[in-house]
């Protein structure tokens, strides 16, 4: 009963904090929607020019193979100077240069070269541009002039269109969950510190640990509710990407993660004296957790040292498990190693975080 009143108070205070409530609603709806639809990892509308020295039927045919909406052909260039110019002024992602006697040499079966010059300042677009362009040119030439002995046929499982929307939606959801789990309990504790209520509680017969645990649990429940809402509404209805697994499995895994992250949150709270410090420390902690989780860069692509450190990021196990449930439809019981890691890490962090917090009062 006593614990219920402690929980009730936290939930009521959260709901009355209009600023935080609006931020939470935004983060679990619009923010995920924007991330899923706005950030695209495929090439879209990439402007390019051509420097066609051959100006033959084949060269024009080749350029016509760069399709919209991936590419956007802006025109022909003559001098090398103007090539430099359009790239310098960011008027194009790349320029395709076709040499003299392109058609003639191809027909004779002689070696020839097509240059793809990209604007390295736009890292991902230029990377994709050169990859797409190489593919198109290769396909054009093999289709037109000779048959290669081996044919490569890619097939994508789980996300057939290789749509980045699916990945981005879940990735952003997990990031938002992490942010709120780090922020909310710490903010709730530090507010009490600022107002001098912690002192009152220390003088009261209520053990501080009960009070802290009530805070973590209340905030965990709030985040869990928001997660369910984001899952059923934002992700499945609004962004409309498929969810293959069992939603309950996803929420259960999130519950485990709540313990880990709110333990970390208590560390933040124990080190902070005011809300400003809470937000600073949250960001300071959130960035390595996100980076080391493999959410932004695959862990395999990291330097060895960071690969080892990534074992420490609780988000790593959560992402592994959560994405497996959401995208691949793996049932929870098959994720034993992730569950084990989260439970161990969560239990330790939750106990330690609360212990530190109580000691620091």
């Amino acid at each position, binding site marked *: *009963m*006593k614990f219920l*009143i*402690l929980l009730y*108070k936290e939930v*009521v*205070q959260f709901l*009355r*904090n209009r600023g935080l409530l609006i931020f939470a609603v935004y983060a679990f709806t619009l923010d995920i929607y924007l991330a899923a639809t706005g950030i695209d990892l495929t090439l879209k509308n990439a402007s390019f020019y051509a420097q066609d020295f051959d100006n033959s039927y084949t060269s024009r045919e080749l350029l016509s193979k760069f399709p919209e909406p991936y590419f956007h052909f802006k025109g022909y260039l003559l001098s090398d100077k103007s090539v430099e110019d359009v790239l310098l002024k960011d008027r194009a992602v790349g320029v395709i240069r076709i040499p003299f006697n392109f058609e003639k040499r191809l027909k004779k079966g002689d070696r020839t070269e097509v240059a793809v010059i990209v604007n390295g300042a736009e890292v991902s677009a230029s990377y994709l541009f050169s990859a797409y362009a190489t593919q198109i040119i290769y396909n054009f030439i093999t289709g037109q002039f000779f048959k290669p002995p081996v044919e490569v046929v890619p097939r994508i499982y789980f996300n057939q269109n290789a749509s980045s929307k699916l990945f981005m939606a879940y990735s952003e959801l997990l990031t938002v969950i992490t942010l709120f789990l780090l922020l909310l309990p710490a903010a709730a504790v530090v507010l009490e510190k600022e*107002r*001098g*209520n912690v*002192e*009152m*509680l*220390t*003088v*009261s*017969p*209520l053990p501080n640990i009960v009070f802290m645990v009530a805070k973590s649990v209340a905030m965990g429940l709030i985040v869990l509710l928001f997660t369910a809402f984001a899952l059923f509404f934002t992700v499945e209805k609004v962004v409309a990407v498929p969810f293959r697994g069992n939603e309950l499995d996803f929420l259960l895994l999130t519950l485990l993660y709540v313990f880990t992250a709110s333990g970390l949150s208590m560390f933040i709270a124990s080190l902070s004296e005011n809300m400003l410090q809470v937000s600073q420390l949250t960001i300071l902690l959130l960035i390595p957790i996100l980076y080391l989780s493999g959410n932004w860069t695959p862990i395999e692509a990291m330097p060895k040292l960071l690969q080892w450190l990534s074992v420490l990021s609780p988000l790593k196990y959560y992402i592994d498990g959560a994405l497996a449930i959401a995208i691949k439809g793996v049932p929870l019981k098959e994720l034993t190693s992730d569950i084990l890691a989260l439970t161990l890490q969560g239990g330790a962090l939750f106990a330690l975080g609360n212990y530190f917090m109580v000691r620091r009062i």
Partner: protein
Amino acid sequence: MKPVECENLRITYRRGRTVAVDNLSFTVGSGDIFIFIGPDGAGKSSTFKAVCGVLTYDSGKLLTFGVDPNDEKAFEPVKERISFMPQGLGQNLYKKLSVEENVDFFADLYGVTGEEREKRKKLLLKTTGLWEFRDRPAGKLSGGMMQKLSLCCILIHRPEFLVLDEPTTGVDPVSRREIWRLLYSFNREGQTVLVSTSYLDEAERGTELLLMKDGKKVVSGSYEDVVRTESQAFLITSDDPYAVYQKLWDITNTPRLKGNTVRVLIPPEKLKNFRELQKKMSFSAQPVEPDLEDLFVEKVGLRRVVLPPIFKPKTEVPENAVVVENVVKKFGDFTAVDGVSFTVKRGEIFGLLGPNGAGKTTLIKTVLGLYSPTSGRISVAGKPVGKDVKKLIGYTSQKFSLYYDLTVLENLVYWGSVYGVSPSTVKSLVSQVAPVFELQEFLNRQVAELPLGIKQRVALLSALLHSPPILFLDEPTSGVDPVERDVFWQVIRELSKKFGVTVLITTHYMDEAEYCDRVLLMNRGKAVALGSPRELKEELRKEMGNAYLIYTDEPFDLEEKLKSLGFKTALFGRKVKVYSLKPITEDYLKELGVPFKKLKPSYITMEDVFVFRVLSDV
């Protein structure tokens, strides 16, 4: 041209939803020491800010040196003639610079240079007693010293008009007297002072006063003209003052029990009833001149508080409820509490009195176990503070322990459950007590919207839900008006006298000592005096003699004269308070060759005790 002319001033916040000042009219004449008095939230600061052009007022007519402060462009040159010191200790100082560097900085800022600067600096720092500390960083000064330095920095360029917002709040009485002395010497050079305070006893120190409450003027004028009540004020002494106090409620709504005396206002038509009561209970009643508190009480009226027996503690504590032996608390090389000892008896109201920074809060927190003492021994209810002792304690901290985003009832249910009181018990208790505390209409409102006095009552109630036998209250009455304060002290007295609750309370209002059974005066971490207020005052009276007020137009000359004759003195506006073992009569003064306008007997106050105990300590 008058420094300030103001008619029907109105200032609102939050786009008119909160009215801070309403229909206020006053005029500050050249050479006045004009005092604004009122509780927190009365509208004093808002008015001052409007006068100085810091805040835009809504309507009415306001002219500072003949210019409307709302007209920013026209007002710019007037700002040069005003110095405004906002509320708070040492707000305008650079904490890392030394005392002298701070003064030099302000001198440069106002273009005071060369010999003029050195001369003036020396004069100001010497009058305030800061000269010997001129190399110390401002951040390491005590609150009172900081406030004095702030004033020096402002006064270095001789502004024509000085506007000071609560310069003496929380400052120790010795520094307070020095600050007033500085203001008088400034005023003596012909400049005008507008100053605000929440201490009613400072009213007498100005030439004009204006009493404010809830944004409105209550009265204004010179002290002698204003502080007049229609009723006659009496000071009653009796063997059983509480019984007399109880009976007086049948006649009037103005009795206040202070120590072993009762102060009461009797309207002319009730004088007969009063005399009958006096005959029946045989107490002595001395007619006294009303003070500002009497005026306030007559205007607003007090309310009798009777507590239901639910607050009676279930556990009995030992005779020595709180024992503090030689407690020292250090933070680094700073000693906040320096070897303090006292014992609070069961059922006693024990006051810790002292200015801000005296170590009161540190001491109370050390007793509660929030800080561990560097050395010394503490026991509460016969044991060191642990889990089972915590159940016996009720505590309100300086900041009030309330959640501003919860309603009153939610707060009470929450704090109840923290102390193991079930919500249903809290609710039934609240339904009984709400009328006594006048909380019915506020129960479902969020605490943030409530006035200070109500917040204070809710905070007190939240500490009482588990009927604790020992109460710790840290500055619970800061900034509230006398009527609110009376309600508060009635509750405390009922708890102590009827139910045997032990109360340890801190305050920086010296006059609140009267409500305590015994007090400990503290200054800079040390105990200055310990005893009942009556004993302490009586002791001082034996040493120093009786106090008298001498009215004059030349207070400085008069004080010099008296000092040269070997008297102890204090300045109070255009009055000098003088202490003498030999009775002072008008003839005696004439004999001594002291010029005066009027002579009146006065009292030794708790502030006197503090000032003289601290000074004899040094």
